[in-house]
């Protein structure tokens, strides 16, 4: 079973919820994998201190021009939708960081002057932290496209585990890549105008994907009741509310988990999993 944790707004507590849930599951003897799909800014490792057992570069295949064969016909530039290849009267220039690796130029070249080489954009790492199986991706600084790294992570997920996918913030392509084939999505929000605005966008996104989901309101007592009214109106399932607790914030600031520091939260996460388990089976 794959449970994705997402949120339109950043900093609402995705990683906190994902890790506490993973930790409670693993200590209940459920085989659990935590996957940090926020490959631009992965934070799960700070809390789990995993031992990395395997790592693998992730690359996009980009064109390499054989100038002994190239006739400067311009077909490669014509097919490229991403402005990653330009043909001048004298030469061909490849902008490898613009290339999405679609292979169009490679296939279209009439004289087979294009081969493909790897442009490394990041890495995936697989390891263990106690009973939790750990996976994360990391985008190299200066590279723009994270979805291929998320795709590679997902190819390596062990099939029998309960998998917790910690998604990047937002509603655009990296988020979709992270959550699109999960069995359940937890949307995290906070009861503030920004939180509600971004929750509405997230709900719109998840409805398009047609995946069952529930709302978790974090720091549930900091703002106003607009989020509750919105959830009622849209008949959304509020699966957990966690109050604003300075103890959680301080534990987080040190890279510690709430369920380890403040045991009263363990039952909340056990109940959360029960609810999700039931929702997925229905």
């Amino acid at each position: 079973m794959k449970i994705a944790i997402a949120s339109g707004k950043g900093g609402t507590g995705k990683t906190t919820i994902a890790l506490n849930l993973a930790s409670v599951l693993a200590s209940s003897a459920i085989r659990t994998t935590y996957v940090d799909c926020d490959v631009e800014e992965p934070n799960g490792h700070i809390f789990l201190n995993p031992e990395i057992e395997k790592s693998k570069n992730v690359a996009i295949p980009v064109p390499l021009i054989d100038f002994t064969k190239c006739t400067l016909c311009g077909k490669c530039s014509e097919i490229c939708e991403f402005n990653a290849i330009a043909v001048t009267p004298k030469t061909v220039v490849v902008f490898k960081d613009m290339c999405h690796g679609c292979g169009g130029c490679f296939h279209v070249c009439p004289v087979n002057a294009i081969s493909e080489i790897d442009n490394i954009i990041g890495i995936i790492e697989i390891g263990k932290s106690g009973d939790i199986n750990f996976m994360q991706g990391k985008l190299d600084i200066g590279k723009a496209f994270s979805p291929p790294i998320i795709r590679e992570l997902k190819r390596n997920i062990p099939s029998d585990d309960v998998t917790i996918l910690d998604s990047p913030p937002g509603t655009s392509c990296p988020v979709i890549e992270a959550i699109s084939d999960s069995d359940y999505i937890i949307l995290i929000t906070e009861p503030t105008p920004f939180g509600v605005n971004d929750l509405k966008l997230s709900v719109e996104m998840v409805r398009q994907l047609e995946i069952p989901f529930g709302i978790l309101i974090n720091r549930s007592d900091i703002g106003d009741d607009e989020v509750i009214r919105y959830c009622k109106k849209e008949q959304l399932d509020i699966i957990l509310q966690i109050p604003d607790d300075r103890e959680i914030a301080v534990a987080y600031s040190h890279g510690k988990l709430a369920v380890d520091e403040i045991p009263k939260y363990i039952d909340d996460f056990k109940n959360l999993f029960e609810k999700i388990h039931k929702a997925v089976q229905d």
Partner: protein
Amino acid sequence: MKELVVISGKGGTGKTSIVAAFASLAKSAVLVDCDVDAADLHIILQPDVEHREEFSGGKLASIRQNDCTSCGKCFELCRYNAIEKSTSPDGKRTIYEIDRIGCEGCGVCAWFCPEKAIDFKESINGEWFISNTRFGKLVHARLGIAEENSGKLVSLVRTAARKVAADNGNELIIIDGSPGIGCPVIASISGAQYVLIVTEPTLSAIHDMERVIQLTKHFNIPTGVCINKWDLNQEISNDIEKNPDIKILGKTSYNTVFTKAQIMRQTVIEYSDNAVADELKSLWENVLYEIG
């Protein structure tokens, strides 16, 4: 004309609240929301839209089933697993369809389809606006849900903002960026004069700040840091301040006025004249000094 970009690496550190406070303090600036997939600045600034345009981030493929001969060439060539294969209800034919969400917009399937049965057309996947607010002009946008190419929309919004600033004689553009270090962030900062990073004293935020500092170094943009909620963990705040590679321009307290002001649709400066407002004013002075 200068562009100041506010980013953070980690989300939720207070970028938008700080940009809104700057809007209150700036005398003549154009405001820009470049967090195009979860824009929030408009909630505080309450813009009246003056100009609206549609945005096309790229093209999308779609297969005309009547012309498709099920040869499977598109399925074989697509590197994004965006061609879905199924069998027709009568079991006689293989059906290929484009998964709209998976489609990267590369057009390879359409180019090589031997029957020319694949349409490849511009898709509208967002809109952008020039608006009036009580603090001056705001340029903002909305990327459609699950859409690609946020970087292109960010670039477009920045170009529009520069034009607005030139037309109105504004000398400063203040840009609210998005979290992360990827495509929209790169598009927000490239070519800008100054970056302010808003961080907080948590190990996660520091880790993310360090990655985003590497990014601004990579693009050679002068960078300063504000520690928001600095008193949440004073020990970690002290560590950040001691780091010789980091230029601290201000510290703001962990205070409920940020949320209260937001609920009133006000900037922190409008909402209160307490200590936090003073901290924000001093941050703003330092930022202005750095930009020069």
